């Protein structure tokens, strides 16, 4: 195990240094991948391809409905769909806001939970509470927190004598989006924290000690030792978080149903309504396709930079 301490540069082992032996196990690779690829193939490739295809048709909900290929018709309509683009902007604001806050807060918490603090075990367990709670009760709970008359938040302001801060959090046009973003951060933090905490275990203490001997400050060590070592994990979890956040709408739906005045109408909620409420599968799938392309473009920029940094 001491190998690590002697070779602090191993993290940067480049792809070019691959020993030949590892490369020859092609069959093994396929066998290793097969178990996960097979169910993915069955349960995601077909539905996904079908979903993508629907975006080029006029498919509608209904018994024995004829579906015909309409090419780009959906996309022409979509270009002029102001409501959708408006909701797409809200979706970006929501997804970026939640992901960034989630990541920063989770990183802080993970660093704390990685310390030799007392009650660390209990603290770790409490930190995953939002994740463990059944989603059905989470929305109801937060509605009660934000309730204008009897909400925990307003009651808190009332008790500390700050009645001026009482607001109709979910009903007010300016506070609704920040209020639901906070709930989003709350709901997704445990996952990110656990992953980062797990990732921190891979950061060798020896590296830190070596750096400490060199007289590097805490911040310097965090910046130049911890963060780089954590980079692959950070890239993976922030990308996934971003995608998940962009795609999630259940909680917001319970809290505001897109209101007030469309201020919290997330694009996925928009697509959901289009498909499940109005039965426009084709158009909803087209919305999905466009969002996938745009999000991939955004992620590609992000991932390319991060991955280059990581390697």
């Amino acid at each position: 195990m001491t190998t690590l301490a002697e070779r602090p540069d191993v993290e940067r082992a480049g792809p070019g240094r691959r020993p030949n032996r590892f490369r020859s196990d092609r069959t093994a690779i396929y066998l290793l991948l097969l178990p996960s690829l097979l169910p993915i193939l069955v349960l995601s490739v077909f539905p996904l391809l079908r979903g993508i295809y629907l975006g080029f048709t006029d498919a509608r909900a209904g018994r024995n409905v004829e579906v015909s290929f309409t090419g780009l018709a959906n996309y022409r309509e979509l270009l002029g769909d102001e409501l959708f683009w408006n909701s797409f902007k809200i979706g970006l604001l929501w997804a970026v806001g939640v992901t960034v806050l989630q990541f920063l807060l989770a990183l802080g918490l993970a660093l704390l939970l990685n310390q030799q603090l007392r009650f660390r075990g209990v603290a770790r367990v409490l930190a995953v509470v939002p994740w463990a709670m059944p989603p059905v009760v989470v929305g109801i709970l937060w509605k009660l927190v934000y309730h204008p008359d009897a909400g925990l938040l307003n009651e808190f302001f009332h008790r500390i004598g700050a009645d001026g801060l009482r607001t109709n959090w979910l009903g007010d046009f300016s506070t609704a989006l920040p209020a639901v973003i906070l709930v989003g951060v709350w709901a997704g933090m445990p996952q990110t924290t656990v992953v980062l905490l797990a990732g921190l275990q891979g950061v060798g203490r020896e590296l830190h000690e070596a750096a400490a001997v060199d007289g590097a400050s805490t911040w310097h060590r965090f910046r130049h030792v911890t963060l780089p070592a954590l980079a692959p994990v950070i890239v993976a979890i922030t990308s996934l978080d971003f995608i998940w956040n962009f795609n999630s709408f259940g909680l917001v739906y319970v809290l505001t149903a897109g209101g007030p005045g469309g201020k919290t109408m997330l694009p996925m909620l928009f697509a959901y309504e289009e498909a499940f409420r109005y039965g426009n599968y084709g158009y909803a799938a087209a919305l999905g396709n466009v969002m996938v392309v745009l999000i991939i473009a955004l992620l590609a920029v992000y991932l390319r930079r991060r991955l280059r940094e990581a390697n």
Partner: protein
Amino acid sequence: MFGKPSRTGRALQYLALAGYLIFLGFPLIWLLSTAFKPPRELVRLHPTLIPSDPTVQNFVQAFTEQELGRAALNSLQVSLASAVLTVLVAMPASYALARFRSKLGTAALGWVLLSQLFPFVLLIIPIFLVLRQVGLANTHAGLVLIYVVWALPFALWMLQGFVRNIPRELEEAASVDGASRVQVLRRVVFPLLAPGLVATALFSFISAWNEFFFALVLIKTPELATLPVALARFVGIEGTARLGPLAAGSLLATLPSLIFFAFMQRRLSSGSLAGAVKG
């Protein structure tokens, strides 16, 4: 990790931790309080933390009306199976993805990301149709299959990140010492991967435990219903709910995941590089 902080530093750390825990953990307290409140206390203009007239009626109702016990057993079965299977499938695959860069691997990762990106609601009906085709509708096995596939993207992305973090030199050194490939995997890779595996198992368990929609549409025999579906029945029209029984049921539904995590969380730090050096 940052050496020994000063006393003020420590105090600040505890303060920050307390802030985090209040933010993240207060709903549990609220659930606890609500679960013991009679209906009249749930609509007070100034809610209190401690019920003035505590009752266990909510628990009685929750269990007699919706058979939460059986639902919980169903959920436990499904979630454990999903967690175990996800880890078993994802571990070798992520190793392959991280260590051998092949076109197939890149395509698989890309696909996995894409599958997470596409509006989920549009995939539900086709997935439902596939499962019916293969005779897995209305079975727990069908649910497990979906949950594993669902957890795989996270698992693969996470774990291959962890594998990349394991210095290749460690493996090489071990194999130079004469260890076989399997031994290398078992003695070197597996322990270093443990925290990632814990995160994966936890993720898979909890998502399965809390998943609602597939459990709702896929299972039609009432005896096979899972916990989230049973709990949802306390929710009524237009955001109303029978808060008492719902809180009681939800409180009990939260505990297994917390207990599961309490057991697993130790593994988040042991078996790590740090642990190998410092006892």
